[in-house]
Structure formats: C-alpha cells, structure tokens
C-alpha cells in the first residue's frame, strides 16, 4: 500500500534520513520506534509532502507521489496528526471537525448551503466526536479545552477526512494512563481499511497495537519485525530499550 524506496533527506550537510526503504501493506498497523532525533517526524513530513526528499521514491498504491505537494497527497487519502497540537485554536471543537469533514466531503468549495447545517457534515462530526470521545465537548473553544481533549481532537481531525493512510505522530504524548487506554481501544476499533503508521513512545501501546515495528536510529532503519522479534532483538535493546526506556 505504501512503498518507500531509498529515501534520503539532508539539511545542509546533515543526513536526517538515510537511504530508507519501507513497505507497508494495506490495513497494517506499523509502529515507528527510535530515540530522539532518529528522523521519525522528518519521515512523516516526507510522506505527507510538507518536506521534499533529497533522494528516493514514495509510492501510494503503486502510484509515485514524490512530485505531489501536501494538498494533493491529502486528497489522495494521506492524513496526519501532529506531535504538537496543530489545531484551529480560536474555533470550537465542532467547527474544527466541521472544517475537516467539509474538506473530506468535497464541500469546502461549495458557496451556497450553510455547511454547519449540512446533514452529511453533521453526521460525520457526530461519528468522529463519538470515536475520539469528544461528544460532550463539541461546543468548547479549542483554546480553552483541556490538553487531553486537544490531543483527542488532533487525532479526530485526521480521522474526519476518512484517510486511507493515517500518520500519527506520538498521539499519546503528554496524556495520562486513562487517555492512553482509551486511545488503545480507538486504534483497535479503527476499520482495517485504514493503514496506520504511528510514532510512539509508549511501549505497551506500541507492542499492543503494532503488526510490525520499524526502528530508526540516526536516520537509518536498523531493525524491522514483529513486536515479539523486536522485544528480543539485541540491537534494538542497545539503542532504544537499553537506555531504560525513553519518555517524551
């Protein structure tokens, strides 16, 4: 479904991603692990089109997408949630989801109908709000919402576009155990027609949801395998788990 070949990204002389190849099958849950500065978020930038790779190719369902910008890739079904909240701060949670739903349903260029009353958009908002447990907070302004709610909305905005490929950058960073549990359930309930890449630091979550795990270090892929293999792998333990676990 997602095929990455020989991907590299340099900033000045710094190689942030080096000759990275990945193959993710449709419906897979792939967790990306790696210490700080391993190039995980850069990889997401390259996949989403917000950064241009220095070298390499990216294919989505066999189609080369390297030349496409972020907007075009989003329209092809790549959605992204951010490590740092990147929301519409002055709008309500409902309005945030409304924007995402309208974009996904092709209503963001319609000039006649009130989009806040459109039945399809309303239905999508309610569905997503239910999914990310925000149904009771819909009319709260994002700027005044709790941190946890904002993290949920971050994922909600990405889900509201009904993506084929969902890139989640540390969706649970900075939230408590209840929220992590809830998020775990959300991931399990996501339909399998969505392929998910997650950058995750929470080990239980990572091993719990992943079909396969890719480990990055200094921009290179140092390991790839099932959660069981990863747990037993010496290299991974050295660079990552050996340090006693990493917390953001």
């Amino acid at each position, binding site marked *: 479904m997602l095929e990455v070949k020989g991907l590299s990204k340099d900033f000045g002389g710094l190689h942030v991603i080096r000759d990275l190849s990945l193959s993710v099958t449709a419906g897979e849950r792939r967790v990306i692990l790696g210490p700080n500065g391993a190039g995980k978020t850069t990889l997401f930038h390259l996949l*989403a089109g*917000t950064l241009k790779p220095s070298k390499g190719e990216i294919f989505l369902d066999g189609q080369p997408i390297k030349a496409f910008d*972020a*907007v075009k890739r*989003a*329209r092809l079904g790549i*959605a*992204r949630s951010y490590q740092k909240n*990147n*929301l*519409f*701060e*002055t*709008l*309500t949670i*409902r*309005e945030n989801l*409304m*924007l*995402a739903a*309208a*974009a*996904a349903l092709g*209503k*963001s*260029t*319609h*000039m*006649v*109908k*009130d*989009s*806040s009353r*459109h039945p399809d*958009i309303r239905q999508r908002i309610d569905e997503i709000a239910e999914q990310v447990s925000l149904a009771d907070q819909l*009319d709260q302004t994002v700027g005044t919402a709790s941190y946890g709610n904002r993290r949920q909305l971050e994922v909600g*905005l990405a889900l509201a*576009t009904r993506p084929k490929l969902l890139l989640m950058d540390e969706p649970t960073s900075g939230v408590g155990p209840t929220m992590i549990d809830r998020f775990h359930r959300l991931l399990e309930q996501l339909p399998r027609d969505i392929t998910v890449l997650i950058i995750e630091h929470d080990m239980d979550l990572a091993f719990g949801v992943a079909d396969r795990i890719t480990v990055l270090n200094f921009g290179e892929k140092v390991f790839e395998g099932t959660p069981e293999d990863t747990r037993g792998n010496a290299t991974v333990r050295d660079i990552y788990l050996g340090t006693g676990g990493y917390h953001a």
Partner: protein
Amino acid sequence: MFYQTKFRSITLIAALIFLASYASFGSYFAREIVVEIIILAILAISLDLCAGFGGMVSLCHGAIMGVAAYAFAIMSAKLGWPLFPSALIGLLAAVVVSGLVGWVTARTNGIFFIMATLAFGQMAYTFFFKSRWLGGDDGMGGISRFDLSAIGLEMNNSLTFTYLGLGVLLLAYGLTAMVMRSGFGRTLSGIHVNEDRMKALGVNTAAHRAKAMAFSGFIAGLAGLIAAQHTLYISPELLIWTTSGEALIVVILGGLGTLVGPVIGAILLVLMKHEISDYTDYWHAFIGLVLIFTVLAGGRGVFGQIEYWLNSLRSRHHDPDNHQTAGKPQGGDHA
C-alpha cells in the same frame, strides 16, 4: 466563523429601515448621504469578507470598486453598449482584477499582503489618473442611469434611486452572508486561523484565497456600479488607497468579521462626518481619535462590542448549548 444570528438579522433590518426613513423623510441632501452610506457599506462588507474572515487586510478594495465603475463607464459611455451588459462587464472586470491580485498575493501574509495590495491598487489608480482617453484626473462623465420605466421605476427620482440602492445593499449582504456560512466561507476562516492544517486537510489554500478575493471583487463591483450610477460621473479618486483605508476604518469601527458591523460602521462614519463638519472643519482628527479608541478598546468595534456583551450575558444566564448559534466575532489580533 460566520453565523447569521437573530441579533444580526434584527440589527440589519433596523439599519435598513433607519436608512429608508432617513431618505424618505429627509431632504434631497439626506438622500445623498444615504447613497454615500450605501456605497461605503457595500465596499466595507466586501472588505470584511477578506479582512475579517480571510485575514487578508486589503488596501486595494477602493481600486477594485473603481475598476468596476470605469469598466461600466467605458462600455456604456465610450463604446455605446447598452447599460445592463455594460454593468455585467463592470462586475466581471472587478472579479477578474480582484481574483488576479488574490492569485499573485496568495502566498504573502501580514504586512506584505497589505503592501502588495497597496501596490496593485495604486497601480490601477495611476493608470486611470494618467489615461487621457478616460479623462485622466478630471474623470469621465456621459454615464446614464438604468431605464427601469418598464417596471414602473423612475431612476432619476432620487428617492427611487436610494431605495434601489438599499436593495443592492441587502443583496450584497445576503450574498456575502450566504457564502460566509457555506463550506467555502467557513474554510476561508479556517485558512485564516491555521493555514498549514487546512493544507493538511487537502484544501488548496492559495486558490481558495484567490477565489475569496474574486468573490469580494464582485461585491466591491456592486458598490462601484452604484457610485457610477449615482453621480453619473467617475474620477480616479474612487481608486486611491485612502478610499480603501476609509473602508477599513468602517469595518473596524463597526466590527470586523460580523458583516453587520460594516453597515453600522458606514452609517456612523458618514453621519459623524456630516454632523461634525457642521460644527468644525476638523472632523479628520475626530475620526482619527475614534479609530484609535476603537482599536485600544479591544478592536471589536461598536456592533462587535455589543454582540460580545450580549453573548457573555447569555452564556452566564443560559445553558452553554446555545453556542453553536451564537455569533463569534473574530476581533483582535490578525497577524
């Protein structure tokens, strides 16, 4: 985001009734004032669409209004076209010019957008100012009013003309309100709040902003047509950047991002101007003080401030479920 609340509808209707009675009970001079208010209010609505919802503080809206007026005058007075097709060409010219400006400035923000629109507006101003064929700085006349005698309207009657102008104002408001609460308008607000995220959601934000400018050009064009029809004469003065500056004052005075605010702002500014100039020559200083005070008081404007008070009263006394229909003026900081 825009919501056509009950309070906004009532205020708009009250404003229109006020203007209609001011025109019908007042003298010929009162009708001149009302038409002046109508032109400024439509221009301000058009600017509010860009600045209040899209964050695009344009200093070329006066020029866009002028382009419509000139295109209309060229087609009808110079080339002898019938009035209605000429008016359509006028609107089209405003849409095209405005859309082009929007398209080339789509990637500039803040002070750079302000300066870029200033440049394009002054370019158009200088063009008409220097054009001998179009009368240069003397402007051009020879424009005639629409002949609506077929439906029993005598356009040369100043009262009929004023009522029709009020109709166009209502039309301009209605169209803009409709578009601002559509998916298109709400997405424009979204781009203003967080352009990057809007791109990540698959919206071509540059094209969206250009389209918004084009639509705004259509509304500004309506103001230009009334201006040309009103005095049957146009001059480059319409296009100069201070015309846009005055429209911006009206928007901020009434309430940025409320659409009704600009109408209230236009009424206040024009009436203040005429009332004060009865007593003193120095109404500029007064307007300047009012403007500074408005910004320092939080930048919500007269209508925006009243709406803000009403909303905070309501949310204190009622259940918070009403939020969706409560207006949320986007005053304050627009970087």
